[in-house]
């Protein structure tokens, strides 16, 4: 190592790449979550512009379940690295 003052250029690039991948993952997760809950919860024939209570409640539950599924699957994939 040339200097111990901070991370080297290679490490910085690696961290930046990981952060970029993480950002892409987060954006993709948000897009999938939004699309999935929109398809599930909102009727196709939009009768008004505001979300009514049933749709609101459905979206709450949909997001909560999606998040739990994401966490659960992440834990399963994390605990079994040989897959």
């Amino acid at each position, binding site marked *: 190592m040339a200097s111990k003052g901070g991370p080297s250029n290679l490490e910085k690039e690696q961290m930046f790449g990981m952060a970029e991948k993480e950002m892409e993952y987060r954006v993709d997760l948000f897009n999938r979550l939004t699309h999935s809950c929109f398809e599930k919860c909102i*009727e196709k024939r939009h*009768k008004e512009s505001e*979300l009514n*209570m*049933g*749709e*609101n*409640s*459905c979206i709450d539950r949909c997001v909560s379940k999606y998040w739990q599924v994401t966490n659960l699957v992440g834990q399963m994939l994390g605990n079994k690295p040989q897959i």
Partner: protein
Amino acid sequence: MASPESSAAAAGAGTDAASQSAVVEPIRMPTAEEINGQDIWNNCAVRSVVSGVMGGGLGVLMGLFFGALDNPIMAEEMTARQQIVYTAKQMGRRSMSNAKTFAVMGVIFSAAECVVEKARAKHDTTNTAVAGCVTGGALAVKGGPQAACVGCAGFAAFSVLIEKFFDRHT
């Protein structure tokens, strides 16, 4: 680049058209106040209280109207002033009683519809039918179980009809 000229031309044409048609606004994410303001309307207690107040107002109006139409029994013996006083009292009594009935009806209907819709997470006429059944049954429960059933079915049908009447664009 072609875009500045085209946007300028569109702006020139837009200001002419804007006076005739609405300008399309860009998308904004809702602020926290807007979300909270809309969330108040998602609260079952707030909704049922507001419905109760509206029902009470409707009951007052109906009581005034129908109380004024009532004829006093001893019309020939009273002077004009006595008749006016009697009619006013009649209107007041009737409107208070009507207001109470309609307010209770509004609270029960709104609370039942809100709870059912939140539990089902769907916006349907089934919510209205169930809420109407609960309201009709609750109002007719003093007449026994059969009266409650008849009240349930009748009020459910009535509320579904009213909902379909007010939702013509479905």
